[in-house]
């Protein structure tokens, strides 16, 4: 008698655990599926950034090698001649003989432009307003839904909740009857529409789980909130990126302000105080290029100009392969190399994150990398859409059709799991607190709402 009771109890707990997990999966899915679809679509396009930009910006990128290259100074002079009141912020010499140079400038009305210069003729090939660059906009959509910090946090939240979706989804998918792999690894086509719809969601979802988790985990380190916290934490332990590669300030030029030559801005008269004129002056961009060459910088590097008197010239290269990355800071007055960080100088976690990023962007292994990532993105879209469809077909007219709520207090393990996830991903934790608050303050007090949500 008692054993039967125990068995039913056990069966009930099992069933109610299933219900609880399903309920969380259901709500998380309904709320975050649209964002995951956006991320997958924008990501699919952004994967092919280099191919797309090579086609649409061909006229800006390609040059005919002929004779000697003119100096970097002369190239920048040309950009300054075209935009007299602008400030030069970056210079990119071009990674090979057929590639134009780029001079990035900030115009007087605060627009960022890139002027493309033919390094053989010294003529401008045209300029692009950075605000008009379509791939940059897609990246912005992918990273922050074009909504700044708020968008960044939403994307991060969606990514974190996608992990919750994966964990709960795997639980729901996990085969309860042994031996039969149909409906687990292959969809059942001949068991009726309902079953087919379920398999159309669950089976592909299982297949892309690893890839999806990989994209989430490699994307998170460059999210604005979790990513920055994570980067600071690992950089502080000595196992991450060296400071300034991802977060942290570049070193300063070693100089005392009194030693710097003052430029007599308003020198209308001949009476210029000698002491103001006398002093150190910055090294030229040509010398910076020479230093880059002698230090063996990856040819795809960009020079970032110092933005104040203590600033440094920064050479930065993030080429397709993680192991080619390099960041060098140069004293703007002496040309001394103040810091030289290559991939080999990254800590272990820094190296892993760097690989994660190039794999996520699809650049590490070129086309095959892009195609695999594209397949995962398409899989995410299929799974999100089929999940939605699954619900839509099953949804009763009058309410959401959510699985019945069971007090979470009875689900010790599940509760601990959610708290754990909430701590590792504080945004998830924060959103859980908000959900609990809404549940307690609003939903529990309005019967109609309660019924609609099946709470």
């Amino acid at each position, binding site marked *: 008698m008692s054993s039967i009771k125990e068995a039913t109890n056990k069966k009930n707990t099992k069933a109610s655990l299933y219900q609880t997990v399903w309920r969380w999966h259901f709500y998380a899915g309904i709320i975050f599926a649209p964002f995951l679809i956006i991320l997958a679509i924008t990501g699919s396009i952004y994967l092919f950034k280099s191919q797309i930009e090579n086609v649409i910006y061909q006229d800006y990128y390609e040059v005919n090698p002929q004779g000697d290259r003119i*100096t970097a*100074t002369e190239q*920048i*002079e040309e950009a*300054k001649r075209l935009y007299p009141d602008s400030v*030069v912020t970056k210079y990119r010499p071009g990674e090979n003989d057929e590639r134009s140079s780029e001079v990035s400038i900030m115009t007087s009305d605060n627009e960022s432009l890139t002027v493309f210069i033919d390094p053989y003729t010294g003529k401008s090939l045209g300029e692009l307003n950075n605000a008009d660059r379509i791939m940059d906009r897609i990246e912005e959509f992918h990273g922050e839904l074009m909504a700044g910090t708020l968008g960044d946090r939403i994307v991060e939240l969606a990514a974190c909740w996608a992990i919750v979706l994966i964990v709960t989804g795997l639980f729901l998918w996990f085969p309860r009857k042994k031996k039969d792999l149909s409906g687990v690894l292959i969809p059942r086509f001949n068991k009726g529409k309902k079953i087919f719809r379920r398999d159309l969601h669950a089976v592909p979802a299982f297949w892309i789980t690893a890839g999806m988790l990989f994209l989430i985990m490699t994307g998170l380190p460059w999210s604005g909130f979790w990513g*920055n*916290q994570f980067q*600071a*934490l690992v*950089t*502080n*332990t*000595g196992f991450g990126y*060296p*400071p300034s590669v991802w977060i*942290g300030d570049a*070193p300063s030029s*070693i100089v005392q302000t009194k*030693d710097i*030559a003052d*430029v*007599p*801005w308003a*020198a209308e008269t*001949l009476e*210029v105080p*000698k002491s103001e*004129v*006398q*002093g*150190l*002056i*910055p*090294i*030229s*961009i*040509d*010398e910076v290029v020479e230093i880059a060459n*002698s230090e063996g910088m990856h040819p795809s590097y960009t020079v970032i100009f110092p933005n104040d008197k203590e600033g440094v010239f920064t050479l930065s290269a993030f080429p397709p392969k993680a192991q080619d990355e390099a960041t060098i800071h140069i*004293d703007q*007055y*002496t*040309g*001394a*190399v*103040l*810091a*030289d*960080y290559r991939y080999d*100088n990254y*800590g272990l976690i820094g190296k892993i994150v760097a690989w994660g990023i190039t794999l996520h962007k699809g650049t590490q292994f070129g086309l095959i990398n892009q195609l695999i990532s594209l397949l995962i993105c398409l899989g995410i879209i299929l799974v999100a859409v089929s999940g939605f469809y699954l619900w839509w077909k099953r949804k009763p007219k009058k309410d959401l059709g959510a699985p019945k709520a069971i007090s979470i*207090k009875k689900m010790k393990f599940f509760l601990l799991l959610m*708290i754990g996830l*909430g*701590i590792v991903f*504080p945004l998830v*934790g*924060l959103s859980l*607190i908000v959900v609990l608050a809404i549940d307690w303050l609003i939903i529990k007090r309005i019967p109609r709402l309660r019924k609609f949500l099946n709470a």
Partner: protein
Amino acid sequence: MKKNIFIIFILIISAVLSGCSLKPNVEKLYKEETPLEAEIIIPNNFSDNEKETIQVNLTQEGEKVKDADFVHFEIWKQDGTVKYYMEEANNLGNGTYSISKDFDSEGLYFVKVHAGNKGSIIMPRKQFVVGELSESDLDFLRKGAQSEIEVHEHHH
């Protein structure tokens, strides 16, 4: 019991949300460079018909560099009328290196030190004034005010 868990949970989350930043001197945990530092000393007064001495004090990792791999001086005048090509410096000991030259013509000058030691190479450049500035010097300085890019290389 459940309340306690909830409170601890909120505490941990707020601790994490309040965030962490980089420790000072975190760069010491990673590869470090040993940049040379230079202090270029220009004489206060220049007199006609006498050689004047320009000095440079070199330090590296807080120590005086007594025997640098190389120290060269290069001096030229803004208007191109004076040009002292790259020349090895005299080692005065104690981390000080010097060069002595005539500065008989007034105007805007540049001195560039090329120095290297233990893998660090520097090329600091200082501008200085002998006597009074000419109209051409002032034009040059005003032009420099508009464009940060140095064009002195043309004078070589």
